[in-house]
Structures are given as C-alpha cells and as structure tokens.
C-alpha cells in the first residue's frame, strides 16, 4: 500500500492533536471491573465533560504492555501487587496509588439451587468441574485456592479444577454450563444488592487474603488533567455507591 504524503500529514496531525487533548483519559481496566467502570464512566463524562477511553483485560497482560510503552494513563489493577510493582519500578506518578475496591469472591453456579448458602456443595464433591481463575495470574484465582486450602479440599478437588485465564473466562465456563460451578467475582453476578441469576455462596472475606484492587496514575498520564480528575472522581461518593452496588467492598 502506498500512503500519500498529504494523507500522512493529516494522519500525523490528527494523532498529535489527539494526544494533546487534555480532556481525554486512557484507562486500562481489570476485566472484573468492566461493568462498574461503564456505569462510572458515563457519570464521570456527564459530570466533568472529560472523556474516558477504557481498555479491558488481564492484569498481567496490562503489566507487560505498560512496561512496553502502552499508551495507558490510568491503570485499575485487579490486585495490589501489580500496581505496587509498577510503582516500585518508577512507572507511576508518586503517591497516586490507592485501593479503589476490595473484591468479593463468590462460589457460583448457573443452575438455581445448585450452590447452597454455605458452600457445602464443595464438600459434597458431586460435580465434575470446578472453575477457578488462573491463580498465577489472577488474584481471584489465588483467593479461590486459599479458600479451598482453608477448607482442606485442595487434594479432593485437584483433578476437577479447570482454569480460566482470567476471571471473565472463569465466569464463561460456569455460565455455559461446561463447569457446574466456579469461583467468580461477585461483581460479575451481582447487581443492586442481589445475585442476578443462578445460585451462589458469597465467600466470607476471612477465608482468603483480601483481594485489594489498586489504581495508579501512570507516567503517561502525569500531565493529563483528566487523569487526575478521574482518580478524584473514583474516590468520590458517587463512584463508591456504584462500586458497592456491584458487590465490592471499599
């Protein structure tokens, strides 16, 4: 393909203009926070006039991309370790890191009545597949293995575990029925204070390390007023209400 010089000039100008615009913020969002961020972004854009461009994905993948020059200005991690790592490596604006949500783990089945309110179904061991997120990459996966370990079930379910690469895929395995049940993020199945469909056991926070989800402003967003505005907005009461409605703690 041949690119004509005038077109190229227009393209370069557009890119330069785009990046110079102060009222747009590029945010990398952990997949489990997809639904809440969409609600928050709508409010944020309406209230502030800024524009939010969100990318959704796995936290480990975002880390690799950020280290390799991805254009994100704000990063909403699914854990606290990745955000901390970026901070220690000097990739974030100092002092910007904070916990924007604490995730809640749920044992969930797409079938009504399959999972009881206390999670006894796990001990009953009548299922073929138990879906969890990859514990090496996803904090919800790590939390799920901790729950199993505390209940002494690690060995018993070892051969039944199927791993999603991230919490979204874990949810998908369960929602399609390929796995009878799985440990998902409560946010995926929760709206306005109740489980939307299927049956779930909301796992007590005492059974695993807290799933702290940290946010940071990345170096690319240092001079972007919209980035700062968004972080402030995320800390505010309006966002907090939305976050809670999806089953997160604060």
């Amino acid at each position: 393909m041949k690119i004509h010089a005038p077109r190229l000039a227009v393209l370069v100008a557009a890119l330069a203009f785009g990046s110079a615009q102060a009222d747009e913020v590029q945010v990398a969002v952990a997949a489990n926070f997809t639904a809440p961020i969409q609600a928050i972004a709508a409010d944020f854009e309406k209230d502030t006039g800024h524009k939010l461009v969100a990318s959704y994905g796995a936290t480990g993948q975002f880390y690799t991309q950020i280290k390799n020059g991805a254009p994100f200005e704000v990063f909403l991690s699914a854990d606290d370790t990745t955000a901390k790592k970026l901070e220690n490596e000097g990739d974030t604006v100092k002092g910007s890191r904070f916990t924007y949500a604490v995730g809640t783990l749920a044992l969930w089945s797409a079938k009504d009545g399959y999972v009881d309110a206390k999670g006894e179904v796990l001990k009953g061991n009548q299922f073929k597949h138990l879906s969890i997120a990859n514990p090496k990459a996803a904090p919800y996966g790590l939390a799920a293995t901790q729950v199993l370990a505390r209940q002494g079930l690690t060995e018993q379910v070892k051969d039944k575990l199927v791993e999603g690469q991230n919490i979204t895929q874990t949810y998908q395995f369960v929602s399609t029925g390929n796995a009878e049940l799985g440990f998902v993020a409560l946010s995926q199945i929760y709206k306005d204070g109740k489980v939307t469909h299927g049956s779930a056991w909301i796992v007590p926070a005492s059974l695993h390390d807290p799933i702290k989800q940290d946010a940071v402003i990345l170096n690319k967003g240092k001079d972007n007023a919209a980035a700062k505005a968004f972080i402030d907005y995320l800390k505010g009461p309006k966002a907090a209400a939305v976050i809670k409605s999806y089953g997160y703690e604060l």
Partner: protein
Amino acid sequence: MPLSSADFSAIWLTVKLASLTTVILLLIGTPIALWLSRTRSWWRGPIGAIVALPLVLPPTVIGFYLLLTMGPNGYVGQFTQWLGLGTLTFSFAGLVIGSVIYSMPFVVQPLQNAFAAIGTRPLEVAATLRANPWDTFFTVTLPLARPGFITAAILGFAHTVGEFGVVLMIGGNIPDKTRVVSVQIYDHVEAMEYAQAHWLAGAMVVFAFVVLLALYSSRKTRMGWS
C-alpha cells in the same frame, strides 16, 4: 535450562496433540479433498467454504462455539452425554476435536490441490488397465499426490502446534490434559515469568522456522503428469 517439568509436559502434550490431530486429519481430510477436487455437485461451494472457514475466523470464534456446542446444553454435549461419555470440554479428546476443525483447511487444501493437479486422465488410464477405483486410489492417486500429502501433514502438524485461541476457550488449562505450549507461554507471560516464556517462545520460533524451511526446500517441481 530454565524449563520446568511442567514446561516439558506441555511440550510433550503439544506433540501428542499435533501428531494425533494430523493423523486424524489425513484420514478424514483425504476423502473430503478427493470429493472437493472431483465433484460437480452444487454442494462443492458450500462444503469448500465450510472447510476453509477456520482460515478466516478468529480461533476464539471456533473456541466459543465449541464451548457452547460441546457443553452440557449444546447439541454435541447432549449427544456425548447420551453416549455416556460426559462432555468433551476440558478434555484431551475435546482438544483433538477442536484442533481437527481448526487445522482442517491446512490439510484439505494442499490435498485438494494435489488431487486436482492429477486430473482425471491418470484415473481413466488406470481403469482401462483393469484397475478398480480402490486399486487406482492406492496405486495411482496416492503416489501422484505424495507431495501434497507431505505438505498437508507438515502444515496440519505445525498449525496445531501453533493453536492457542481454541485451546484457551475449551481447554481449562489442565496439566497433562489441555495445557499445551502456547497456553503455557501465555501463563508465563501473565505471571511475569519472562525467562521461561522466552525459552518456550524461542523454541516455538525455531520449530516453526525449521518446519517451513523443510517445506520450502523439499518442494520439488517434478511429479508433473507427462
């Protein structure tokens, strides 16, 4: 070498999956390719297009539909449950099925081209020399299509080794069953284990290069029909 036993078992599993897939594809791909290269039926277009679909579809699409159809509520899943086999997702057998679909065009198309290049004349000659159709297939068609079979086997194997999206969607990342090299690399990257990711990824690059080198340097211009 910083490869763990999990890495080696992923490599072994990958080789096993690719070999089995290639054998199955050669067995079912040959009649399909033969039919596609000979038929004048109206169905030639639609069937050819279906076989070629994986060439253009993202593997995730194939994986997504396999997840749905092989799951307990899908047609395939209900059939396998009726047979008493359970569901095929999260199993090696399921991966083989996924790979067979995913790599199908890479085997069928070289075979189809090889059969088409042979034409009908050699078959007619064989018939007038008293060879029945099966006899002709084994003594004329197969030997004349040999370069096509070699290409098909190499491409089928290599493409299965390179499979990722389908496995990711239906595999469940189970060691020794569904955790193949490409998924293992993805795992390493996600877990920020770059050294191991490098070793495996580098090995894949070398493997792919060697395979393609073999393919391109062994391709002879001979075997024309005289």
